[in-house]
């Protein structure tokens, strides 16, 4: 393996791969991405891959809105030889409680102020969009047609191939084990395959970003949390949008391949690195899904899995330089929606690092908000 690099990126998920590409495409040379396993082996390859602009905080909404534009043209931009399978079937966010409905109204106001074309619709209109939706007790729904989902493996593969063509090196099955600093500046990265001298390190380790920060003695306010998902056998297309019911903690979509992917958030999930699949999850998700979408009871489950959310205290990303470790940047804390914002979080971080004009104020994602600054508190997380 090489002995030195301009930039070392740790983590081969969508954040690391997109960041590598955005640096390389701006002319930065000698970049290496270090990945413990294979690309997409972390949260990225385990995610629902939904892309929605219907957020309650401006920060999440802007990142998602602008990332949608990028997903729309990604096959061409990255000259990808497969298809990232970006399908804009919309997101239907259904509301069964008054409190939640009031929050949705506030969220939609934020979205409209940013030009996101979300519609507030009646239960009947919602049922026209998803005929098998249970509208018993439904108060209303919000719908945005340009939301959708993509294939996470292919998106990462596309960034990987485009970055490789620009000269970026990828070292898979290689773990970062330590980071050396001198006089408050990063100087080198230790890996299972040797040391690499570098003055810039980007920590894109998702759930493990805290572990990496500890290597320079910094306590990142981030905790891992298991989230499980399942997939059914494929059937004829019958559901256009992703359906989200925050009240039922449920998200559920039909992929272009025909299978349904769904998950529920578990409010009692402990803060740890466990990623075993549980039987309780199967019962829980089956109950919630067949309540909201009764027709699904006939579908057969073929596989379940789990992955880790990298939770930040306010469910907004952390994009900042680590204090007392100059040259080390963190891009983590994506709190269960890092896939959909990755194209633009990568751009924002790279603009900042290269001293270019940032398309939105990156300070909003800074670490200072956790020590007395203003938190961004996002309400619309499953």
């Amino acid at each position, binding site marked *: 393996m090489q002995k030195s690099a301009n930039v070392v990126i740790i983590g081969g998920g969508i954040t690391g791969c997109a960041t590598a590409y955005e640096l390389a495409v701006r002319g930065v040379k000698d970049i290496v991405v270090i990945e413990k396993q294979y690309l*997409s082996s972390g949260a990225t390859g385990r995610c629902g891959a939904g892309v929605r602009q219907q957020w309650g905080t401006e920060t999440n909404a802007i990142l998602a809105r602008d990332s949608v534009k990028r997903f729309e043209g990604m096959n061409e931009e990255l000259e990808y030889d497969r298809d990232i399978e970006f399908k804009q079937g919309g997101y239907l966010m259904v509301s069964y409680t008054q409190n939640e409905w009031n929050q949705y109204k506030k969220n939609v106001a934020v979205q409209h102020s940013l030009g996101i074309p979300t519609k507030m619709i009646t239960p009947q209109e919602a049922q026209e969009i998803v005929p098998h939706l249970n509208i018993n007790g439904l108060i209303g729904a919000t719908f945005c047609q340009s939301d959708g989902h993509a294939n996470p493996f292919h998106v990462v593969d596309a960034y990987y191939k485009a970055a490789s063509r620009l000269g970026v090196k990828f070292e898979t099955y290689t773990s970062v084990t330590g980071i050396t600093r001198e006089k408050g500046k990063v100087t080198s990265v230790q890996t299972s395959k040797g040391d690499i001298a570098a003055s810039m390190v980007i920590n894109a380790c998702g759930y493990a970003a805290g572990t990496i920060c500890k290597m320079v003695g910094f306590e990142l306010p981030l905790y891992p949390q298991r989230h499980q998902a399942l997939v059914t056998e494929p059937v004829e297309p019958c559901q256009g949008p992703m359906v989200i019911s925050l009240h039922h903690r449920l998200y559920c979509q039909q992929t272009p391949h025909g299978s349904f992917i769904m998950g529920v958030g578990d409010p009692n999930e402990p803060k740890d690195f466990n990623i075993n699949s549980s039987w309780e999850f199967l019962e829980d998700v*089956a109950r919630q899904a067949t309540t909201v979408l009764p027709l699904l009871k006939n579908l057969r489950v073929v*596989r379940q899995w789990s992955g880790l959310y990298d939770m930040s205290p306010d469910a907004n990303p952390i994009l900042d330089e680590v204090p007392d470790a100059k040259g080390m940047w963190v891009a983590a804390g994506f709190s269960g929606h890092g896939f959909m914002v990755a194209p633009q979080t990568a751009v924002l971080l790279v603009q900042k690092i290269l001293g270019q004009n940032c398309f939105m104020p990156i300070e909003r994602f800074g670490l200072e908000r956790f020590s007395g600054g203003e938190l961004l508190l996002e309400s619309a997380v499953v």
Partner: protein
Amino acid sequence: MQTKETIVCRCEDITLEEIKSLIDQGYRTIDEIKRVIRAGMGPCQGRTCRMLIAQELAKYYGIPVGEVLMPTFRPTVRPVKLGTFAGGE
């Protein structure tokens, strides 16, 4: 063997040729191959193709089949209806 016509993954219709071409491109484990072309993601969850892909990887890298990294086995073992888990049937 006719690699174009030999189906390795019957659930997802993946041929030996497609598998070999991915291995040539540098995809190194069953998990990586599965994620790019869905081999082993169908209703049988890789019962047949897992071993066939392992053989191809073993041949390519000149290692025993036992040393090829196996994907994680996860529930469900056999496809079960959602309604059954929900307690309806």
